[in-house]
């Protein structure tokens, strides 16, 4: 058919796309336009294991997605003595009032590692966190094959037993996006990679999607306020999976994006609050540093730092609190 007049062109173009039946896209749009709503992206309502350790006594939300692996249980970690360990920064996922967000930890590379960035990204994928509250949502067996630095982007090669291009049914779009961000943030914060965007390969080639997240061009890191947890504890710093040894008084530092910059904390033994207090972050409503000092008699405690429960203002059912917690052992 040769277009001759206007009407022919009209028919031609109409016909060319008449069979296009887009997939339902409203949920994706809603997820992306609604960062304030409390979501339960980890397979909410699905029966599953509940993570419960001493350090998670007061965790705001438990995770029930079966494929989510508990941090700190990765193989080869506890017994590994790196020959020439290097410090790397690794990001893990945790649940917050804003949905899944990233928490950072400082780790050492494994003894067999020749590429610190690749090692860090693999630790992120495996969920080898020190803090048992932190998690990974990457399917079991996901392998980081390579991290190559190109002129204007980083190439991260992944492979696995499952189809990594697709988002598992039990994984929300928000969780998939944050899992991709987990690897971008980890790749960018090691090996002097700066803010280079990241292009992912699956099984040796760039695919249209990674966990259902588009991957057509190198992906940028989300902003700190969009990617990082609203409340996190930097020190006392956890260096392995055991309680953090401290001497009283000890300094607590971290970052919070809290309403009116109000940061609250509790030191608990079991369900008993032994100490409590509050401080003010350097700025309101955007991630800003906070610090305070805690004095306590010797003993094992859980330190919890949190923002105010926003549920009263937003009517979201009392799940509006974001927090981080650490198990500490006061000598």
């Amino acid at each position, binding site marked *: *058919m*040769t*277009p*001759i007049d*206007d009407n022919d*062109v*009209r028919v*031609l*173009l*109409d*016909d*060319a*796309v008449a*069979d*296009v*039946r*887009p*997939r339902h*896209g*409203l949920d*994706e*749009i*809603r997820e*992306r*336009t*609604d960062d304030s709503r409390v979501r339960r992206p980890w397979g909410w309502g699905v029966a599953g294991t509940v993570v419960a350790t001493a350090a998670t006594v007061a965790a705001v939300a438990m995770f029930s997605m079966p494929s989510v692996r508990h941090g700190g249980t990765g193989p080869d970690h506890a017994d590994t003595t790196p020959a020439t360990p290097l410090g790397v920064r690794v990001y893990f996922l945790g649940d917050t009032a804003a949905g899944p967000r990233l928490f950072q930890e400082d780790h050492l590379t494994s003894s067999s590692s020749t590429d610190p960035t690749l090692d860090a990204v693999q630790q992120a994928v495996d969920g080898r966190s020190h803090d048992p509250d932190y998690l990974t949502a990457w399917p079991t067996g996901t392998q980081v094959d390579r991290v190559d630095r*190109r002129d*204007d*982007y980083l*190439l991260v090669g992944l492979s696995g037993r499952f*189809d990594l*291009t*697709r988002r598992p049914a039990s994984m929300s779009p928000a969780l998939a996006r944050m899992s991709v961000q987990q690897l971008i943030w980890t790749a960018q914060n090691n090996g002097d990679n700066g803010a280079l965007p990241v*292009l992912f*390969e699956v*099984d*040796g*080639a*760039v*695919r*249209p*999607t990674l966990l259902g997240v*588009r991957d*057509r*061009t*190198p992906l940028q890191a989300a902003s700190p306020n969009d990617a990082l947890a609203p409340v996190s504890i930097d020190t006392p710093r956890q260096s392995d999976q055991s309680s953090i040894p401290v001497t009283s008084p000890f300094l607590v530092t971290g970052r919070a994006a809290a309403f009116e910059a109000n940061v609250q904390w509790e030191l608990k033994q079991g369900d008993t609050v032994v100490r409590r207090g509050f401080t003010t972050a350097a700025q309101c409503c955007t991630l800003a540093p906070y610090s305070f000092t805690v004095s306590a008699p010797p003993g094992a405690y859980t330190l919890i730092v949190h923002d105010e429960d926003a549920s009263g203002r937003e009517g979201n059912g009392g799940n509006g609190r974001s927090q981080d917690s650490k198990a500490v052992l006061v000598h």
Partner: protein
Amino acid sequence: MPLASTRLWDQGWDADAAVEHLYAAHYVRLVRLAVLLVRDVETAEEVVQDSFVAMHGRWGTLAEPDKALAYLRRAVVNHARSVLRRRGVRARHEASTPPVARPLPGVDENALAGERRTAVLDALRRLPDRQREVLALRYYLDLSESEIAETLGISRGAVKSHASRGVTALRSLMEDHR
């Protein structure tokens, strides 16, 4: 296209409601418009979803409700052009990576089936950006010259000129196809 959403503002709907209403009324047609611009369905969906997200963010400043749809159209065209430009990076990467025979998942092969449809979409891709955009807005969305001029930020004279050249080029490319 019919705009059933002209009373959104009067009804005091917020950005979320606006997205839902405009999605219901226009999503499919906008994705099809984007397919004419970027060729594959998956990218087209992303382009349109990006546009809805952008529209949501601007809802407070869109003074009149029908401007929301005009904004969406403009966003789709701009995002599509941006995607085509950014594909350069990926093309460079693929040039150094052997192609994998496995078909890309998620691409609706049925939607793109049909020799003529494929030929039309291929021909559109070979047109200069402006000609492709003008043809899609004029002959698929049936926008007036002034609406197209406003959407693309060009003069009505330029719209006429791009349309005329675009039709001629499309005719020529389709003749090649025969």
